[in-house]
């Protein structure tokens, strides 16, 4: 084998690509980044090395524009076992069980090829979860598409939902919730986020570390093909332009095989169960380069990779193609040599391909070796592993608030003319999303107590290997609100956490961990960086107030289409615990004769609301003030009321305000409601934080009010459930049957009206 000092021969980086653009730029590296690579290596990098740096230093893999801000998240709590920076965050949830949580985006691939983009998003997040030793037990999909009246957006929506369904159902992980949002800001650039929860016995927790000189790197799973080459740099780290150019990017999208993934999950978990692997690492963005560099860097080791050993789908693949391919369903296991036979036997049983492709060294360097040129083994790349993983550039990109911010803030939606037909405005907001989630297996593993369609999914907590029911439950919610964040990314982000906390509270759950997916526009726009920075602060302030640690996250930048950035869309996922889980928690339902109580204080402000957006008022005014202490108390008391079984139905109040909350409860249960003491449309549609509607049996009302009063929580009795109409006295009166029809049919009718492939 060649010495480390030798300059590997694999082309000259000065070669121009066919159109005359220097190679490093064609690969997405800047001139400064090239200089940095030269400094690190003390020489010119060759083609292969440049390709490896380009994928590892891509925005998607390195977080080079956002890391400086992400450091401000609160990440510590006594129950946190693994914080941000690993495959998944991990918390101790008691009874010897650890829960792994992770959220990812697959926005750009899904815009180009909706079915495979979404499908491989599911596959990728599952590998993140079982790479730490956890069995994936639930997935959630927060989805955002362009408006329903746009045929291409409908094509994307239908393809994404089919992809999630086709892959997730087959691989055998239930999809228990998420969100489905349609809005003009996502036209051409949908947001396809995916969250996964996994469980493991606490002692099985493993991390992707290559330790022990002489240990073997075993590649498990699919052969490597030309699919997804440069996906992280070509797709995920640039925006979209014209249709033709976008269509050309389609080969950068990977193709998923859920059956391969299912066998890979079972094989990897068996390896870990039997203690046959030192570390396991998923192959996601940047493929073998990322997996080998990360495991080596984190283990403080080096690795020699025999690129010829990598099984391939097609002949004549160059080393750079093999090293940067994002072919799906592959894992890297670090194995002690004397355990190799056992590992190979498990792989055979699960019909999973397993190949030794490398050896752990103490050189600290990632060296790629090939004998393909005929002669003996030759080193064709030789770089410090840490330089790929840890030493990516860190940018504090310029940020500035929008020039017209002060002017925009003075334009409150409260000054819009009062609506002439409040009932019609309310009906316009109703949309049953079951068309989406009824296509997902949401019941597998017999845990799903509250299915999608509620405020939070509720799952039984069973021990992942013994199956013993702990008698406790988990709740999960994902939330994001671009309309709020377009007005004020900081306060909007704070309100998003408040919504999540209330979503957990109404099912009786206490939050224990948060992950986030920061979906923003082009980081080279100072306004976008300002939005990102503000959002991080807004989320952090709320997390600190509620005592919730951030255990992981993902940043998706360059979400832009035809020059316009999307509205800032931080999406958060919260995990909560219900202790004990003795009965099905209340859902957003009304019960005939129940009293309706609004918990929390309504701030009279419509800016940032869905109603304001429906009137064309977006990104202007000021959001309703948030009193985090009051929200915290209101959430805690709501949780207490639910735990005491005093509540028949409950729904958080967020997008669409009190009006939509009550209407959704009514249509979902087939029971009408009569509300009084609502002054006007401002009170009805305000989206101020920290509120919920409770439906309470008449003989429990006194007890509920006593608890609310004892804790000083603002509340009001607003009416009662019953009848076949939704009535807000002096403001609106619509038939329940009509509302239910609108609610139920909006999505299937819209999608059914046809799609246009982009």
């Amino acid at each position: 084998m060649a010495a480390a000092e030798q300059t590997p021969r694999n082309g000259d980086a000065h070669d121009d690509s066919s159109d005359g653009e220097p190679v490093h730029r064609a690969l997405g590296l800047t001139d400064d980044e090239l200089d940095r690579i030269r400094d690190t290596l003390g020489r010119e990098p060759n083609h292969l090395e440049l390709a490896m740096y380009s994928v590892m230093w891509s925005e998607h893999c390195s977080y080079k524009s956002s890391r400086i801000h992400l450091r401000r998240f609160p990440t510590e709590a006594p129950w946190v076992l693994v914080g941000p920076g690993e495959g998944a965050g991990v918390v101790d949830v008691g009874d010897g069980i650890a829960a792994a949580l992770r959220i990812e985006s697959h926005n750009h691939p899904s815009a180009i090829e909706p079915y495979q983009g979404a499908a491989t998003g599911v596959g990728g997040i599952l590998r993140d979860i079982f790479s730490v030793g956890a069995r994936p037990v639930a997935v959630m999909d927060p989805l955002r598409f362009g408006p329903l009246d746009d045929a291409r957006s409908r094509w994307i929506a239908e393809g994404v939902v089919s992809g999630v369904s086709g892959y997730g159902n087959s691989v055998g992980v239930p999809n228990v919730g998420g969100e489905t949002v349609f809005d003009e800001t996502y036209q051409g650039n949908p947001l396809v986020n995916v969250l996964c929860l996994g469980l493991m016995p606490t002692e099985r927790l493993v991390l992707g570390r290559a330790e022990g000189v002489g240990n073997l790197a075993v590649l498990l799973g699919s052969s490597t093909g030309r699919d997804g080459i440069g996906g992280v740099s070509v797709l995920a780290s640039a925006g979209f332009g014209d249709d033709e150019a976008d269509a050309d990017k389609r080969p950068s999208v990977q193709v998923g095989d859920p059956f391969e993934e299912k066998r890979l999950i079972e094989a990897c978990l068996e390896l870990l169960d039997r203690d046959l692997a030192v570390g396991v690492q998923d192959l996601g963005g940047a493929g073998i380069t990322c997996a080998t560099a990360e495991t080596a860097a984190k283990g403080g080791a080096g690795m020699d990779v025999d690129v010829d050993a990598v099984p391939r789908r097609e002949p004549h693949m160059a080393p750079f193609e093999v090293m940067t391919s994002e072919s799906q369903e592959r894992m890297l296991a670090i194995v002690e040599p004397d355990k190799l036979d056992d590992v190979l036997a498990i792989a055979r049983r699960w019909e999973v391909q397993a190949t030794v492709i490398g050896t752990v060294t103490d050189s600290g360097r990632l060296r790629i070796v090939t004998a393909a040129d005929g002669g003996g083994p030759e080193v064709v790349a030789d770089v410090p592993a840490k330089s790929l993983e840890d030493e990516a550039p860190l940018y504090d990109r310029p940020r500035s608030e929008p020039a017209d911010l002060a002017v925009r803030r003075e334009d409150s939606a409260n000054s819009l003319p009062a609506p002439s037909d409040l009932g019609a405005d309310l009906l316009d907001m109703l949309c049953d999303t079951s068309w989406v989630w009824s296509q997902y297996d949401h019941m597998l593993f017999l845990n799903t107590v509250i299915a999608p369609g509620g405020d939070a999914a509720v799952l039984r907590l069973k021990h992942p290997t013994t199956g013993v029911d702990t008698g406790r439950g988990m709740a999960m919610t994902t939330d994001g609100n671009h309309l709020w964040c377009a007005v004020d990314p900081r306060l909007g982000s704070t309100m998003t956490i408040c919504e999540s906390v209330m979503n957990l509270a109404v099912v009786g759950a206490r939050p224990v961990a948060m992950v986030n997916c920061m979906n923003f526009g082009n980081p080279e726009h100072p306004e976008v960086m300002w939005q990102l920075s503000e959002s991080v602060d807004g989320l952090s302030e709320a997390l600190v107030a509620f005592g919730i640690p951030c255990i992981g996250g993902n940043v998706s930048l360059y979400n832009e289409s035809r020059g316009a950035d999307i509205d800032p869309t931080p999406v958060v996922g919260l995990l909560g615990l219900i202790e004990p889980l003795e009965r099905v928690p209340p859902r957003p339902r009304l019960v005939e004769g129940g009293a309706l109580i609004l918990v929390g204080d309504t701030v009279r402000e419509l800016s940032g609301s869905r109603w304001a957006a429906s009137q064309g008022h977006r990104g202007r005014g000021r959001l309703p003030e948030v009193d985090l202490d009051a929200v915290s108390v209101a959430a805690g008391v709501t949780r207490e009321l639910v735990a005491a079984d005093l509540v028949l139905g409950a729904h958080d109040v967020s997008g669409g305000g009190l009006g939509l909350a009550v209407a959704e409860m009514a249509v979902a249960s087939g029971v009408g409601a009569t509300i009084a003491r609502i002054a006007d449309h401002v009170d009805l549609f305000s989206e101020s934080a920290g509120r919920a509607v409770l439906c309470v049996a008449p003989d429990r009302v006194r007890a509920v009010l006593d608890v609310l009063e004892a804790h000083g929580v603002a509340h009001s009795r607003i009416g009662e459930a019953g009848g076949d109409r939704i009535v807000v006295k002096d403001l609106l009166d619509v038939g329940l049957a009509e509302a239910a029809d609108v609610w139920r049919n909006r999505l299937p009718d819209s999608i059914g009206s046809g799609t246009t492939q982009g």
Partner: protein
Amino acid sequence: MNVAVVAFPGTNCEMDVVEAVRSLGAEAQVVFHDGDHLDGVDAVVIAGGFAHGDYLRPGAIARFSPIMPAVGDFAAEGGPVVGICNGFQVLTEAGLLPGALQKNAGLKFRCETSELRVETTDSALTGEAEVGQVLRIPINHFEGNYTCSPETLAELRAEDRIVLRYVDNPNGSVDDIAGICNAGRNVVGLMPHPERAGHELLGSTDGRVLISSLLSAAGARSAVSA
């Protein structure tokens, strides 16, 4: 009482069936497809999922697995065999039940709770139920649209072999068929998942009467042969 729960690569409901059987006090274990015998088994359940990824056609590859001749022998001896969802598809592909399952009429995957009417109690899965009883049990499939020749349908009707019908047909199945049995009445296939309706917290316990019926059928046969 010992139930073998057959799993192929890609099967994913096997542990759910094991849990449902155990919750009724019987023993159950997963039997992987690469074995070629079933020893000391009182009943066989082929669990749902996506055996071999549903590639080619659901059940089309699984029917050739080493375990399938043993399942066929067990059925030929009168042993109770139930195929749930993908298991039903495997049984039709293996020729242990007539007909086939094609794509749902709406061309969408459907996961929801369905209402089923018990049409006969003379089967390995319904002995403890009542004719006309309506059960709330989840479905979870893309290819659950049962079809067969008119002659087969006439035979199934004449011989009282339609075990379960949908109250509100979700997938286009001929004659609203959700489950059928063989002429011996010991092999039953159904698209709905009784194991998913076995706990108060999961919204329905109506699946218990079916699993319990299977255990009784297995017990009765074991008592006779013992």
